[in-house]
């Protein structure tokens, strides 16, 4: 069987691109860009590109953490609620201290501590992370309203703060720059470091990883902390973007993040996935989002579409792997 398969791959380059994970994503992205731009002139304009990058940045930052977490064999459903709560913390601390730096640090610290609790619940209390982080989501969604009933405004009207999200460095939007740095670091970790290997190994075979003299719990702990910290970082950008802390923000955010990661070829079962795939997954979903707006389609499609894409992506994944697996 492997022999015939390799023959097929050599004789059929199109199939090879379709069956290679990143190749398929690149093709889909190109098809989307060509398709949408042929219906809308605005699509390829500079302001629209900036808008897409802005939109993608928040999702990508968290998706990098989620990729590492899913590869380790766990999941975090609480990132949306964490994002909203952390953004309120950022704004509240800035209002208290008059310091953007302290506000940003507080937001990242808050996001990280949510990750810490998720890690504790999963690796020490041995609660399934799907359930544990849904519970965390519920606590955060309720808790944020104990913290603030309504959006926290920028009381001091610090003009510098909104600039984080809307500013440019070297012609690149700041959030996109931050997301790129996060993605590059994530890529280096996953492809070049021992830590990356252990994330992959833990997700691929937890028992084998333990027998090889490592602690899968510690590995997962790190992945949860990373996801929480990156959610905190995204919250700083979100607060800057709307120049406020919004307790109702982040609804459905976790679904978009997970959809993008899975679309990028990361396995829900762990052990398999790439940062590159996640970048493409995020771009595809966000370009589709953008297209729906530009083509003046009903905006409810923005959440319907990722659902359809997700099923298609997982179906393709099944097919691709089904040929080699059993």
């Amino acid at each position, binding site marked *: 069987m492997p022999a015939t398969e390799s023959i097929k791959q050599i004789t059929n380059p199109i199939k090879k691109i379709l069956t290679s994970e990143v190749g398929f994503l690149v093709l889909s992205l190109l098809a989307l860009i060509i398709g949408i731009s042929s219906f809308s002139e605005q699509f390829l304009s500079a302001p629209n590109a900036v808008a897409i990058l802005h939109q993608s940045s928040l999702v990508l930052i968290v998706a990098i953490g989620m990729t590492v977490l899913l590869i380790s064999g766990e999941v975090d459903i609480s990132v949306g609620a964490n994002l909203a709560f952390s953004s309120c913390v950022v704004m509240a601390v800035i209002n208290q201290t008059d310091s953007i730096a302290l506000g940003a640090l507080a937001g990242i610290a808050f996001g990280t501590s949510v990750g810490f609790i998720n890690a504790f619940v999963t690796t020490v209390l041995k609660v399934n992370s799907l359930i544990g982080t849904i519970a965390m989501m519920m606590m955060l969604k309720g808790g944020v309203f104990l913290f603030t009933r309504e959006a926290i405004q920028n009381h001091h009207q610090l003009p510098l703060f909104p600039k984080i999200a809307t500013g440019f460095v070297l012609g690149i939007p700041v959030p996109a720059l931050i997301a790129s740095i996060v993605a590059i670091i994530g890529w280096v970790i996953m492809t070049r470091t021992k830590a990356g290997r252990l994330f992959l190994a833990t997700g691929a075979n937890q028992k084998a990883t333990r027998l090889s003299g*490592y602690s899968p719990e510690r590995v997962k702990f790190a992945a949860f902390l990373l996801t929480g910290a990156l959610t905190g970082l995204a919250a700083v950008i979100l607060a800057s973007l709307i120049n406020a802390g919004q307790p109702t923000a982040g609804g459905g955010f976790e679904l978009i993040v997970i959809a993008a990661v899975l679309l990028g070829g990361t396995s829900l079962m762990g052990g398999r996935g790439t940062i590159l795939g996640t970048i493409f997954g995020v771009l595809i979903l966000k370009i589709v989002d953008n297209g729906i707006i530009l083509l003046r389609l009903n905006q409810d499609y923005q959440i319907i579409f990722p659902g359809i894409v997700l099923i298609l992506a997982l179906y393709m994944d099944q097919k691709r792997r089904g040929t080699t697996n059993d």
Partner: protein
Amino acid sequence: MTELNIADPTNTSVPVLSVSGLTKKFPGVLALDDVSIEVRSGEVLAIIGENGAGKSTLIKMLAGVYKPDGGTIAINGEVQNYASPADALKAGTKVVFQEIALIPEFTVAENIFLESHLITRIGTIDWPEIRRRARDIFERAGFALDPDAKVGDLSISQQQLVEISRALAHDAKLVIMDEPTSSLTPLEVRHLFEVIERLKSLGIAIIYVSHKLEEIFEISDRCTILRDGKWISTQPTSSHTNDSLIKDMVGRSIDDLFPRSERKFGDTVVQVDGLYTHNRLDNISFNVRAGEVLGFFGLMGAGRTELAKAIVGYDPISAGSIKINGNLLSPHSTIKSKSLGLGLLSEDRKEEGLMMDANVTRNMTLSALQKFTRGGFVNAAAETKTAQSFVDRFRIKLAKLGQPIRTLSGGNQQKVLLSRWLMYGLEVIVLDEPTRGIDVGAKTEIFALIDELASQGLAVILMTSEMPELLGLSDRICVLAEGKITATFETSNVTQEEILDAAIQ
């Protein structure tokens, strides 16, 4: 009972079963290659061979589970063309599989007539008749069974009798038994053999599949040996010796199978004292010296795997101590045991060893990653170079290091997993069933490798349920039964019987 009426070779009557040129292909393997056998009425034909020799493929074709790719199966001279197991049963072939396929909630009588419920004139099931016929069968075959007992309440041995009764109820001409004694006590094995004698006297032809040689000698009239899907020989069992059987099975003599270099024992490396675990191990103590292979033998459920996992810190212990070169394994974790130079090669490659989708290099370097890591970064070039050197040294067959490990054969996968620890560099290696599911050729290489490791001064703890492997590799043997060490022997002066006796108590 050991005096057997060898089937008369001049007997010209039509054999009950006659198989000719039977062939079965699976993707990538020829599972059975041009095999021909005959079984006559009242005869027991043993079929033996190593794992992967083609025994179960042959049986599944005789049972109508697989369709042959070539050759014919004839019952009483009539060529059969089974579309399903039901056809095989109709033609008179009944297979008693290792895992018994009865419905536990039904009664004995109900199970016997499962396929052919007898119906009264008004269309209901004729229970009195079914019970009567079941009793008839028991009387004929000499079984002490209650037709109204629930099958779920019976022992495995009694359930086997129910299966055999089913064969009789269907007027089976051929009964095939697949490893029938694997979960029986010695007394139950006696009973089974009496049943087989009775079936012979009823003129039924029997195929007996087992890898327990002593049983073959006791119960079979002739024996057919398969190896790598091919027919090797069919001879009267009495013309065989233990050695000639093994030689035909593995294709070389036992001495070549287990090379043994001069081993020099050093200081005591492993010291286990009074080890208990929650549910199984009971006061286990032993020592292993450098360069020594200590074999642990035990039947299913004796506690071999439990011991292996407890020693390396994978499973928790409730009392006792494990010392490596005098250093206590504490905290009880695999991280600590690895740092002391102690590692386990698991019996379950797929579940506890391999990262199936990852490539060969990634799988091989998992334990030794630190060796290629500087400041957190892995030096991929050095990693690949080292992996390649192990591939060469152990002659691991692969196309390229980047191929997924799942595409390798079991033997090559096992060599990769062994390399995982050797690359790290251990003082003590625990091997749990190291040759399970591996073909004969690769087995020999792994045996040679284990011998080489010991001669280089590694302390080896070998868990095995295979007697030849135990005797061929170990310097000393500990026998486990129900979580306790029941005996310790020097391999040079122990017999298989002594070991089995200790394992059964």
